[in-house]
């Protein structure tokens, strides 16, 4: 062995080896320092994230009750099977076993599990309303279904079915648009249930309650080892409505019956081609005119809120959306209609306030009104000539009789006169209409209320700028004012606005903000908040004006020449005098909208009732009988109100 020459070489090579080893260990120490000192806080947070799972338990929502404490929306307990971790349970064995237990097909379950709607760690609901035996089986075999959990969840139930569905609204899973930053701060999670429409949406903050928060220690397989902290959910508060469920049922039933009966009636009497009326929908509003509280809001057709429980299927929702009669629309606050002659209340107020008419003045009704230079003919239509319905000639009439018989000419004249800007200012007519509440939302505590429209030169110019093809010019003519005076043309009101206008007249000139909610109480019964009646505005109504108008409205039902005389024949008007006004709004290409606006008893108004029925002919024929039947119910005149007696060939 030539150790002399080899030794230094081996030694130096060993030194190289030592340097390499020192470098490697230095690298390990450096990395260790980085991970455990510099990066420790974020690793700690990640470890927390890993093992601590925060589970929010939605609180049962508060109930919704009517004014007498009848529960309109309640909760039932439903056992919901959900999967907490989509990623981990993607094993086919678990899926098919679970499908067997839940009695669904593998494919449908797989589709649910892989639904992109949920985040990778959000629980995915797989089955609702699971039977107790399945619940027990899944709980006992938790290890076989590592990420599957069974939880009792409160679901909405509707003791009265679809009655008042439009008012109550429905609930559904919060969507990305609804999950605003403010809501996130309030603790909303994806998948939470939220009020989508109606009272459920308007009073969401009261109804929602406090979700329970549970912190769980979870191992890597998703098995819960320990509960670290738990705050139980607190049920939401109860909301009491001004609705009387009996009145609501009465309104809905009367409206439905009225529409059904109308559909069996020929439209020839209303100047139609002789088919039966289609009467596809309508609305009824019942208000308490003394304080604006809402007793009933009926819309037809409507939907079944139970379809939305536990999430509505896309097919079902599309079916509702694509229905040409729009069952999801609440016609009472979202339907905008030409009100026809019922609008004459506003025109009369405008005329009286401007002094264009007085209660004692007489007017010669020749069956038409000539606007412009063309000579009018009682039989043939002439441009610039505005006729009464059926060319009726009423002769010498005053405000009272003009309302009773529904003379258009009388009110045309007001429209013509008030179009004089120099004398009555801009919007002489429209200001009166707006005073009784038209043209702006009533402010009812329900979402998505329509504003309606009282057209004038400004609105015309604006619409012309927007849709130049729909108008010949952007100018406002006297004829437009004439149409507006009788609730035709572009005039649009909601049934609630119409009812609120008549309520304001009934109570002497106070326009109330219609209120649907009376109070909010806790589950222990403590009153948390009451909603006092709120006056929106007040207008001048001299006693002699009111007397003249009132007797005109009373004459509608009581006088033999009143437009709704036939509809109210046999009704105990001496005991319960009904003040009302018929309306028959022309709709291009369709049968007219039948409207009746009223309040009773006329001497001491307790109820304002408005009925509006689409494509149903004269107000006196379809809407008035519906209102009559509602009064029969409201005044307990017959324990079982009979059929709605639809009239025919009636009056405006």
């Amino acid at each position: 062995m030539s150790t002399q020459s080899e030794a230094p070489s081996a030694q130096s090579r060993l030194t190289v080896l030592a340097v390499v080893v020192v470098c490697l260990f230095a690298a390990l120490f450096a990395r260790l320092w980085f991970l455990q000192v510099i990066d420790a806080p974020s690793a700690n947070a990640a470890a927390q994230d890993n093992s601590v799972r925060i589970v929010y338990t939605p609180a049962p929502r508060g109930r919704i009750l009517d004014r007498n404490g009848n529960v309109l929306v309640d909760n039932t307990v439903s056992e919901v099977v959900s999967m907490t971790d989509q990623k981990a349970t993607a094993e086919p064995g678990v899926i098919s076993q679970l499908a067997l237990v839940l009695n669904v097909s593998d494919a449908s379950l797989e589709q649910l599990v892989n639904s992109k709607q949920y985040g990778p760690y959000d629980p995915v609901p797989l089955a609702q309303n699971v039977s107790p035996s399945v619940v027990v089986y899944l709980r006992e075999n938790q290890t076989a279904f590592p990420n599957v959990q069974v939880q009792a969840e409160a679901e909405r139930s509707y003791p009265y079915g679809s009655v008042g569905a439009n008012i109550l609204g429905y609930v559904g899973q919060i969507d990305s648009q609804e999950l605003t930053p403010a809501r996130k701060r309030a603790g909303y999670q994806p998948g939470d249930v939220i009020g989508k429409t109606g009272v459920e949406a308007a009073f969401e903050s009261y109804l929602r309650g406090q979700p329970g928060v549970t912190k769980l220690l979870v191992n890597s397989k998703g098995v819960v080892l320990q509960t670290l902290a738990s705050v139980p959910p607190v049920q939401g508060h109860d909301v009491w409505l001004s609705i009387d469920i009996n009145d609501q049922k009465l309104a809905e039933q009367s409206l439905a019956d009225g529409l059904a009966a109308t559909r069996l009636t020929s439209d020839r009497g209303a100047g139609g081609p002789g088919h039966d009326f289609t009467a596809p929908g309508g609305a009824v509003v019942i208000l308490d005119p003394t304080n604006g509280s809402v007793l009933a809001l009926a819309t037809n057709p409507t939907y079944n809120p139970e379809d939305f429980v536990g999430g509505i299927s896309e097919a079902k929702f599309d079916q509702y959306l694509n229905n040409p009669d729009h069952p999801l629309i609440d016609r009472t606050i979202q339907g905008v209609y030409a009100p026809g002659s019922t609008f004459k209340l506003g025109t009369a107020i405008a005329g009286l306030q401007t002094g264009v008419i007085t209660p004692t003045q007489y007017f010669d009704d020749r069956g038409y009104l000539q606007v412009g230079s063309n000579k009018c003919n009682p039989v043939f239509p002439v441009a610039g000539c505005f006729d009464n319905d059926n060319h009726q000639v009423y002769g010498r009439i005053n405000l009272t009789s003009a309302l009773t018989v529904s003379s258009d000419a009388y009110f045309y004249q007001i429209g013509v006169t008030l179009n004089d800007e120099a004398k009555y200012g801009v919007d002489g007519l429209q200001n009166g209409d707006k005073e009784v509440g038209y043209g702006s939302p009533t402010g009812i505590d329900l979402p998505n209320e329509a504003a309606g429209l009282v057209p004038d030169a400004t609105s015309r110019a604006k619409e012309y700028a927007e849709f130049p093809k729909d108008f010949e010019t952007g100018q406002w003519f006297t004829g437009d004012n004439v149409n507006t005076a009788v609730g035709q043309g572009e005039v649009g009101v909601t049934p609630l606005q119409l009812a609120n206008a008549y309520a304001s007249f009934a109570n002497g000139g106070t326009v109330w903000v219609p209120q649907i909610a009376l109070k909010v109480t806790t589950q222990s019964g403590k009153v948390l908040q009451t909603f006092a009646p709120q006056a929106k505005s007040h207008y001048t109504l001299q006693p002699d004006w009111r007397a003249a108008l009132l007797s005109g409205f009373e004459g509608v039902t009581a006088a033999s020449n009143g437009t709704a005389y036939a509809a109210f024949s046999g009704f105990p008007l001496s005991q319960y005098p009904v003040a009302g006004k018929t309306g028959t709004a022309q709709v291009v290409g369709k049968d007219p909208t039948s409207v009746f606006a009223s309040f009773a008893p006329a001497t001491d108004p307790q109820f304002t009732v408005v009925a509006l029925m689409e494509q149903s002919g004269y107000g006196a024929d379809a809407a008035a009988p519906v209102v009559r039947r509602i009064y029969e119910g409201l005044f307990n005149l017959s324990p079982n109100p009979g059929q709605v007696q639809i009239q025919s060939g009636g009056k405006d």
Partner: protein
Amino acid sequence: MASVPVSRRSVGMSGSSRRTPAAPWRHVDFGLALAAIGVSGFGLLMIYSATRANLLSEGLDPGYYLKRQAVFVVVGVVVMGLTMLIDYRRLRDFAPVFYIGSVLALLAILSPLGKRALGAQAWFQVGPYQLEPSEFAKIALIIGLAAICANYKGKMGGRELCIVLALSAVPFALIYKQPDLGTALVLAAILFGVLLVGGVKARHLAILMGVGVIAVAAVLHFGVLKAYQRARVTAFLDSSSNSEATYNLNQSKIAIGSGGVDGKGLFKGTQTNLSYVPEQQTDFIFTAVGEQLGLIGCALLLSLFVLMVWRTWRAATTARDATGTLICVGVLAMFVFQIFENVGMTMGIMPIAGIPLPFMSYGGSAIVASFAAIGLVLNVQMRRYS
């Protein structure tokens, strides 16, 4: 062993041995032996802490892995003692037997005799235990390479190098075929260490390293690796990918990092107790140290490893002959590579490869082979004067 007839004897060696029969035992490096036993004890505690909660949750004996590993450690210590008994120069004479024996065992593994599990065919079932020949092949290769390279007396030309490479390639290929890329790489590390110190020309070493780099690149590029292997190898380069390997690596880093300086305390690590780290009692045992005992525990463990490596290096430098030096170098290369690769893997600076952490990871064959390796070093060290 003693009954095996000796084919060739070194007269000088046996002569000195006879003169002072007790002399080698006076020079035993107890520090190294105690460090190895100490790390094993530490490993037992970590294995217990990493498996206890999971076993309990499955209704099993929480000490299951602990007890089995304790048996392995005892067997390992006995094997270490036995390895020290026989003079390494006599062991060197049996190098061909060890080499051929290990190659046959590796061949048998690939035959139907071998047990197949987790996609790899790597062991024999011996009663309730598994025997992993690849672990012992490492020891056989160390002895074999030391013997042959010492024989070249520091003069390694191209021909000699080729013979060494060819001899190493056989067990490498067989282990790679199992497939056990990690252990195959350990063989490469042993080869590298022995060649470096054994006198290979710097030029050849450079060529070898160049070829190695190209081979690794080619393997990654041309998809020789199976998809999961590739994911494991590249996971540490790309922490944003979604593979299982990346998940494992992230959990591993979280476990170590969340331990901080002083750790969460024994049995208090959420990552460890809730089994977020996969294979924690075997390849990822270091994470149990990191999470529960923090930087202090990790530094203590690494220091013990440094102590072992330093004593091994000392043994290499003081060895009486080249065989002894190269045996120590082989053992050193093996341990350093395994420690660096394993700990580096858990911290995300090395690719994921199934290599056990010496004396720490759960596994009988690895523990026994590691003790045998330390036995070899002690053997060389105690006979530096004889």
